[in-house]
């Protein structure tokens, strides 16, 4: 089994996992109205990282190099997660995998005028992060909104196959004019903070975040939560809309459960993708129902953090780890009344709930879907 031994989240809700988890427990959304000409010419709701606080933290980065906003966040996030372990990140037995959809895409804006040369290239950004941590083994995964989940599964496979002992998975995306205008043109943004699985849901909210999870072949002393299954699958149906039958998501869950060698009846909690677009949430409810998990508590954290793209799978998996560690199911911010066709159990309040097996779901453009199965070895429910 591959063990989750340390993590960090930097988001609108805080600069480490503890701050984020405490904020999630209160049920209060981190989404607010943003009025920044650099991002969009009109006000729009989004979940934004506090730039003043980022600047204070960035002052602690010791290097001669200048870093972009996303690189700063990744360096800070990886550093804080590493501090919880005694892993030497420059060791040959450790590798880094970055998950992002658009990386430093803000560098295409005219205002940068060639500053940070070539760093809009994702491999170059990976090289910059690797150089900072003195580790050349960096790979970059860019597979739309399932990137984070697939990156964790990739890291897990690299440990299972004996290539590395430790893997540092860092997922991140920031709010940029590119991404905000793109989702606006797609008419997929809600005018308010998004409402996952709700009858009045009307689109997603964007967010920015970076998350790091450190996986190891050895457990840590403080927790023993591991990843025991993971898979991805394609709907083969449409490039920008989910399958009406939840086919790809259903297959990804089936394969992840098969690898974990458990039946869906053993899953105690599901962390859904839950973007709050009408089609995504409906599709996920179908995939959950097809696996007979309608009675399992489900939540989506997009109402807190917004859709953080390449970070989403990482930070939402970290939240799931913390839920498992503390025996809690977090509420679904924005959810009030069930608005999908299958009678799934969407949590709308913080609840105590022992979780031995947790399921993380993700879906994205290109018809891609992914799933992870986690186990809590400290919490054997028999």
């Amino acid at each position, binding site marked *: 089994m591959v063990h989750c031994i340390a993590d960090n989240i930097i988001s609108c809700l805080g600069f480490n996992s503890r701050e984020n988890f405490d904020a999630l427990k209160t049920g209060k959304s981190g989404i607010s109205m943003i009025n920044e000409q650099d991002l969009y010419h009109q006000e729009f709701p989004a979940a934004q990282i506090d730039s003043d606080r980022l600047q204070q933290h960035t002052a602690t980065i010791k290097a001669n190099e200048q870093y972009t906003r996303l690189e700063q966040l990744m360096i800070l996030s990886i550093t804080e997660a590493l501090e919880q372990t005694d892993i030497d990140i420059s060791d040959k037995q450790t590798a880094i995998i970055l998950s992002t959809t658009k990386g430093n895409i803000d560098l295409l804006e005219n205002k940068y005028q060639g500053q940070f040369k070539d760093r809009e290239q*994702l491999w170059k950004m990976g090289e910059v992060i690797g150089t900072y941590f003195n580790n050349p083994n960096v790979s*970059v995964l860019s597979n739309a909104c399932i990137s984070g989940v697939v990156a964790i599964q990739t890291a897990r496979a690299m440990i299972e*196959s004996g290539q590395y002992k430790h893997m540092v998975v860092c997922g991140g995306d920031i709010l940029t004019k590119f991404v905000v205008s793109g989702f606006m*043109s797609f008419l997929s943004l809600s005018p308010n903070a998004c409402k996952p699985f709700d009858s009045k849901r009307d689109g997603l909210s964007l967010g920015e975040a970076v998350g790091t999870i450190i996986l190891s072949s050895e457990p840590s002393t403080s927790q023993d939560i591991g990843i025991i299954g993971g898979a991805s*699958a394609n709907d083969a*149906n449409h490039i920008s809309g989910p399958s009406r039958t939840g086919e790809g998501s259903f297959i990804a869950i089936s394969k992840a459960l098969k690898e974990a060698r458990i039946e869906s009846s053993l899953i105690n909690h599901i962390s859904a993708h839950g973007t709050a677009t009408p089609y995504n949430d409906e599709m996920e409810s179908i995939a959950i129902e097809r696996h007979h998990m309608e009675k399992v508590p489900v939540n989506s954290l997009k109402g807190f953090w917004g859709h953080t793209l390449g970070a989403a799978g990482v930070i939402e998996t970290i939240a799931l780890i913390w839920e498992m560690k503390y025996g809690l199911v977090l509420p679904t911010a924005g959810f009030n009344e069930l608005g999908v066709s299958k009678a799934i159990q969407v949590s709308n309040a913080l609840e105590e709930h022992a979780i031995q097996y947790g399921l993380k779901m993700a879906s*994205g453009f290109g018809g891609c879907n992914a799933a992870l199965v986690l186990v809590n070895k400290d919490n054997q429910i028999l």
Partner: protein
Amino acid sequence: MTKLSISTYCHLVNHRVYKDGKLIFEKPEALGLSDFVKSVYRQFKPKYPKFFKMDDISKLGFMAAELLLMDGVHKGFESEEVGIVLENSHATLVTDSSFQESVEDYDNFFPSPSVFVYTLPNIMIGEISIRNKFQGENAFFIFEDFNTEFLSSYIQQLFDTDKINACIGGWINQSATDYEAFIYWVNAEEKNGYKHGPEEILQLRADNKR
């Protein structure tokens, strides 16, 4: 470890198309990607009008897959058994730049959702999946150069953990000045197959006979 081999491969580069190392199509002059890939479409006639809605790099990936599969190597596999794992160095930066131009200036603001959707490298995986009903594993990785060591061990572990029984692997890249698609079909070892190893894959890529 599951023993694997490559049963066929296809290479689109320098306005030429090679299948299993043999030249099967060429244009006499150096064409840009957009014109070249359309000429490949006209030559091989897949009869798939959706092709014309794709951005250039998806068109390139799509046509590479059409030619890879032209002899039906994928027949007999179930949808869920076939994965697609690709790499490149430039993600979708050429398409990204044209989208960025459309949002840069609010006085001349025309972001197009049909361009935006193509600003993710895995969209070409989606296009190939839709065309062929492939529903197995998906991943897109970005490296400075074709990293066959990483890709071959990634695909190997997908077979070893029973996720897939066949896979398209390869490198599909578009930069401002150049393009290349090199893709191959991996399945269980067969007598006439090519070895699925990091060195061997690079050799197949270099093996372009006139």
